Each structure stands twice: as structure tokens, then as C-alpha cells.
């Protein structure tokens, strides 16, 4: 059983005639301990898909019209509020784009981390994390939590914050962006999730800090054996991190593939265009090519193949019927009949 299985998810914003389809038939699986990258431009529905895993998109306006999201085999879309609260943090944790905005400005960071601990791993009871058995590479069962402060310090140390003892009393605004993001990661790890969803965790940070945070996530994954869903618009960071990549365009997945193969040989015209838009250090004096045209806005999606209006290889058929996502080689799925 996969840790996460999204099957044919369809979600609208609004109801009835005003409804705008934001996510249209997305299917995605993530195995335990696997890292999957979700790539796409802003507005393509990747963040909404990611937030849906713990049903964090406010409803209304969100309206799930079809599909299911199986987390540990249970459908998130059918869960009660009580059950939702258990899986939020307990199974899936989030790291968001803007660490400065995601930390509550008026509480000390130590207290904010402690909040997660008290909720998911209260003192005295065995941590839920110890319940996981065969599916991950947990080396040993850790005993129940004894002391919140000590655990907060351990977590801060784990995410590479120097002198954590003096940092727990800090307010978010007293830290740099990179440090804030480390705190966010520590907070996400506090509840010992099986899946960490990182939504553009480095976009708001300086380039040098970006690399450090990615390095940190990679290292943590190795040590803790959790799965990661990394959302990014930057194909450049996919190679170092991901086992598999899903490319999203206008609410649909257009290509799904093992990361290495995708980078070596993209199949979908959109993926190819994205690759060409990434500057290469070794590529010589090639001009960066931008994709002509604009990202279609939600509600304005082309009727058939959504990429057709901007596609350099578009044929007349492309604007007639929606292409299916088809497995063209082992593990490689493409939503384009002309991928060859």
C-alpha cells in the first residue's frame, strides 16, 4: 500500500455556474520514504493539490467534485474534522513558502514547536511515531517523551540551528529567513510525520540559503525515512532531490516520470519547454528560450489540450479532444499523443 494515493482528484472553486475547475483529474502516488517533485508554473494547481492532502483549502470556496485522496489507505475527503486534525501533523506535515508569514509573529518559536509536541506527542504517552513498523526504516522504537523543552532543543539541533538553547525564547522576527524556515521544518518534524509536504520552501530565500535548506531536507529524509512531496517551479532543483517528478499544467498532470529519465529525456512538449527555460551552466552561449504566450488562468483553460495554444508542435487534432495521460514506457506517463 502506498502512503499517499490521489486518484482522479477534481476540485472546483465555487459552486454551480460560477465554478472554476482548479484541479482536473490529478492522480499521484507517493510510497513511504519516497521523494516526489511536483513541478509547474504558478497558478497551475500544484499548491491546491498539495493542500488538499490534509484538506487545508478552505471550503467554501473549494468544492471537491470527484476522486479520492487515500492517506494510509483512508480517504481524506471523507474524514471528520476530528480525524482530519489527527492526520494534520500526525501523518502529513507542511512547510510553506514564506517562513516569515507562516510563523505566528507574537509567539516565541519554542512555544510554537511545543504546541505541536503537546498535541501529537504528549508527555508520558508513547509517541505515535513509534507505532510505525515495517514500512519505514525506523531503526528502533524511541521511548515516550519526557521533557518538551529538551525535545524542542533536540529538534532545533536536528535542523541545524546553532545554540538552540538560547533560540527557543526568540520571536520569529528576531531570526533570518533561513533560520525561520529551519524552525518551520523543526515544527513540521515535531509530530513525526510520514509525509512532509514542502511547498516552494526555498523560493522566498536567498540563493545561498536555498541550497542549505534543500541540503537539510535531503539529509533529514535520509535519517528519518519520511516521504517528501516537494513543490517547486524550478526544474533545476529536481535532479538532486526527487525520485519521481510530476509536471502540472493548467490543473492537470501532463507528465509523470522517474526524475533522472525526465531530466535526461523529457517527453511532453511543455516539459521540454520548461527545461529550455532553465539556464545551464555548461550549456555554452545558448539563448534562454521563454515559452511563447501565457499561462492560462483558472476558468480560461483551453477546451482540448491545454498546452496546445502555446505548443510548438501543435497539430489540428490538439484543439479537438483532451489527450489522456498514457503510460508510454515503464513508469513514464505522458499526456500527449505526439510525445515521440
Amino acid at each position: 500500500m502506498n502512503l499517499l494515493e490521489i486518484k482522479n482528484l477534481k476540485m472546483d472553486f465555487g459552486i454551480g455556474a460560477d465554478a472554476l475547475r482548479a484541479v482536473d483529474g490529478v492522480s499521484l502516488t507517493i510510497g513511504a520514504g519516497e521523494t516526489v517533485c511536483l513541478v509547474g508554473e504558478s497558478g497551475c494547481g500544484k499548491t491546491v493539490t498539495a493542500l488538499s492532502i490534509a484538506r487545508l483549502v478552505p471550503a467554501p470556496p473549494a468544492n471537491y467534485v470527484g476522486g479520492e485522496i487515500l492517506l494510509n489507505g483512508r480517504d481524506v475527503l471523507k474524514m471528520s474534522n476530528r480525524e482530519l486534525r489527527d492526520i494534520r501533523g500526525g501523518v502529513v506535515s507542511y512547510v510553506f513558502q514564506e517562513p516569515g508569514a507562516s510563523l505566528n509573529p507574537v509567539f516565541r518559536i519554542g512555544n510554537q514547536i511545543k504546541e505541536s509536541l503537546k498535541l501529537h506527542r504528549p508527555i508520558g504517552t508513547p509517541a505515535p511515531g513509534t507505532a510505525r513498523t515495517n514500512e519505514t526504516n525506523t531503526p528502533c522504537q524511541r521511548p515516550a517523551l519526557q521533557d518538551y523543552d529538551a525535545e524542542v532543543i533536540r529538534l532545533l539541533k536536528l535542523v541545524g540551528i546553532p545554540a538552540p538553547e538560547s533560540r527557543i525564547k526568540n520571536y520569529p522576527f528576531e531570526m533570518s529567513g533561513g533560520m525561520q524556515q529551519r524552525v518551520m521544518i523543526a515544527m513540521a518534524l515535531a509530530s513525526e510525520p510520514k509525509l512532509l509536504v514542502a511547498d516552494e520552501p526555498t523560493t522566498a530565500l536567498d540563493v545561498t540559503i536555498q541550497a542549505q535548506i534543500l541540503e537539510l531536507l535531503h539529509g533529514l529524509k535520509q535519517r528519518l525515512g519520511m516521504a517528501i512531496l516537494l513543490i517547486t517551479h524550478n526544474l533545476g532543483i529536481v535532479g538532486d532531490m526527487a525520485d519521481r517528478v510530476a509536471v502540472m499544467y493548467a490543473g492537470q498532470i501532463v507528465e509523470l516520470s522517474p526524475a533522472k529519465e525526465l531530466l535526461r529525456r523529457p517527453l511532453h512538449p511543455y516539459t521540454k519547454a520548461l527545461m529550455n527555460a532553465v539556464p545551464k551552466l555548461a550549456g555554452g552561449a545558448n539563448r534562454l528560450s521563454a515559452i511563447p504566450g501565457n499561462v492560462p488562468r483558472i476558468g480560461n483553460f483551453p477546451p482540448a489540450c491545454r498546452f496546445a495554444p502555446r505548443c510548438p508542435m501543435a497539430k489540428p487534432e490538439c484543439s479537438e479532444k483532451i489527450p489522456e495521460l498514457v503510460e508510454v514506457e515503464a513508469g513514464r506517463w505522458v499526456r500527449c499523443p505526439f510525445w515521440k
Partner: protein
Amino acid sequence: MWSYLFKRLLHMIPLLLGVSLLTFLLMALAPGDYFTALSQNPQISPETIAHLKARFHLDQPWYVQYFYWLKSVLSGDFGYSMAYKIPATSLIVQRLWNTFLLSFFAMIIAWGIALPLGIWAAVKKDSWIDRGCSLAAFLGLSVPDVLLSLLALWFAAATGWFPVGGAQSPVNDLMSPAQQFWDRAHHLILPALVLAAADWAGIMRQMRSNLLDTLRAEYVTAARARGLGEGWVIYKHALRNAINPLLTIFGYSLAALLSGAFIVENIMAWPGLGRLTMEAFFAKDSYLVVDCVVMATGLLVVGNFIADLLLAWSDPRIRLNK
């Protein structure tokens, strides 16, 4: 934090000086004074008037008068009320206390109504509760203090449940302490309610929109993503942040409250600073007008300082910034 508060405290001094200077200047520009009417009286000799004028430095230019006034105020003496024929200090202190009582209780009532309603409306956004609250707030914002006070007078006169006017009954001195307390409270309730009714609507709307803003904030989504319960998310994470902007508008709301108190005092005969100002105005007792304006401004300034204190206590970004 201390340097921030110290700076705010230091800021109050030139402000109060400026206010007193401005009011003094205006009073100096005013045609005629208390003695203009007195000099019409054939029973009072011009010598007496000249003597009195000299005693109150009214024969000097206004800026000299100002310095005499400032000197005595700084030593805690607000001079002598020519119209009331008693030292102004005791008069001012008593009236200031009454205005403070009225405003303070009105404020407690208004905030006590506005905050829960604002929170309720924001949490139940677009429900009938929200609509009802915002309609009520519209009506509350639009009903003039004058009309409300008149209606309250009418209500008191028609039902006889509340005394009409005054801060205590004439026989208050003869009562036992418990009776005295009840007597004063009884006189205070209606004016305070009127003032609160004119004041709550703005605060409620502010509370609602602040909470709606913070409920949209990313840290609220992040808190939900950690599995915190909805109640905890709203009442701890969102509300705590929605309070801070409310404290920064506290000053404006207090200024409006004091202006409202001015009207309520004059219509409902509550012996506060506003009523004293009008009495002094009609009696051309210009020093007393200046005293009243400065004291009212002082009340406002002190209120703002307390709001600054609360804000510093509530918002670590202000408290810890050097």
C-alpha cells in the same frame, strides 16, 4: 521597550504645552472677557475692576498671562474661577473625575459588546449573524449622539426608572456609603449606556475586519496544518494578532468617546468637563475654558499612553525593538 515608552512619554510634554498655548491664543483672540459684562454693572467701580484685572494679570498681554498661568498650573494650581468664585482646581478635578467615570464605564460597556460581537461576526462570516451585526453597526454608527441622548432623557422621564440629570442626588451626603454608591451608579448607568451605544459600532467593525484579516494569514493555515483545533486556531493564533491593530486605533476611539461625552454631558446634565466648558464659555471665564481643554486633552493623551503600554506588552515586535 523602556526607551520606546520613555520616548512616548517625552512626546506628551510638548504636545500638552502646544495645546495649552493654542487654546490660550484662541481665548486671547476672543472678544471681551468676564469683566466686560462686569463693567456694565454700575455698582462695581472701575477701580475694583482694574484691581481685579491686575490680580488675574488680565491687564497684561496674552503671552505674559500664559506664563503666569503655566507657572501656577505646574505648581498644581489652576487659578481661580471668576464665574464660580471658587478655586478652579477643585472644580476641575471634580469634573475631570466625572468625565473620566462616564467615559471609562462607557468604554467598558462598548468594548464589552463590540469585541465579542466582532469576533462572532468574523467567525460566522456571511451568516445571518454577521449580516445582523453589520446592519446593527451601521445603525449604531449613524445614530447621532444628540438624538440618542434626547431619547434617553425621554426614556428616563417617561419611565421614571432613572434620574434625569446630575451625577448624584442632592441628598447624597446624607446617605450611608452603600446607598451613596448605588445612588452614583444609578445616575451613571444611563449616560454611560448612551455613550457606549454611540461608540461600540466602530470598534465592532474594526474587530471583525482585523480578525478576518488574520484568519486569512498564512500562519493560521500553518497552525491548521499542524492539526490544531479550529477553536484553538481562532482564539489563540488569529485573535491574539487581531488585537494589536485594535490597540493602535484606541487613540482615535478615545477621542471620539470624549467628544461624545461632551454632548452627553451637556444634554443629560452630567457635571463633567464638557458641561463645565460650556458653562465657562457662556460666562466668558476664559481661564476655565483653557483648563478644561487642557485637561480633556490630557485625558486623551494619558489614554493613548496606556494604549501604547498595552501595545508594547502585547506585540513583541514593538517591545523588543530597541
